[in-house]
């Protein structure tokens, strides 16, 4: 097959808010795929019984894992809000330039608010448990 350029020609476009918000949705989605691995690891640890769980706890409650969880909270909140924007676009609404610029701001603000809410909930949960 002839060598053809791949569809998202990342290098030829000037970075714009629409491209940034869409690209971030993809990047956070990829990060959340890694989160899925961690979720299944945790479920398997619980199913493995108290001892298996205690072994997994050593990994899962490592101080550096707090950074990973914070990353997942940021990624999940963004992907959720930005994903809803994509679902609205799929109905054919909000595609005009001014509208998509407004919704880019809305997604940014709403996802930050959601991150703070979930982050606060996670902080409460962590201080509640040793």
């Amino acid at each position, binding site marked *: *097959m002839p060598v053809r350029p791949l569809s998202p020609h990342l290098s030829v476009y000037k970075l714009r808010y629409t491209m940034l918000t869409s690209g971030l949705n993809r990047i956070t989605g990829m990060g959340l795929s890694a989160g*899925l691995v961690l979720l299944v690891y945790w479920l398997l640890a619980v199913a493995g019984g108290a001892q298996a769980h205690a072994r997994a706890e050593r990994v899962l409650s490592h101080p550096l894992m707090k950074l990973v969880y914070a990353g997942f909270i940021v990624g999940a909140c963004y992907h959720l809000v930005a994903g809803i924007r994509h679902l609205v676009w799929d109905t054919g609404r909000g595609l005009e330039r001014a509208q998509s610029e407004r919704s880019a701001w809305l997604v940014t603000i709403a996802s930050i608010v959601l991150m703070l809410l979930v982050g606060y909930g996670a902080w*409460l*949960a962590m201080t509640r*448990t040793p």
Partner: protein
Amino acid sequence: MSLRTPMRRVLGAGSARGGVHHWWMQRLTAVALVPLSVWFAVSLLALPSFDHATVAAWMGQGPTALLLILLVVVASWHSRLGLEVVVEDYVPGPGARTVTLVVVNFVHVLLAAAGVLAVLKVALGGAA
């Protein structure tokens, strides 16, 4: 009538007519994940503790087990569809792309099966 030659079909050039289904499933799983992920975050953070007894008791409840299974299956599906598009966009060359797609699919089926098995084991009383 298609004007594409049989050789083009074999090489996979052009539409394979699977695009609409892929697109639709991506949206369907996305819609399902909105309530599922919100439920998961809220009920996980509401747990009084993350020790084994508490988590196992929570996972063992019928509604929790059901929703966790749905979450793992739908999230795996959504993740698979999303990563497939990323692979198709960025992995160059038909050989490497096909191999990566096979790996992506196998890993996601494995994740979904392992997650469902784990939840079922706890829910049906395998893990005391």
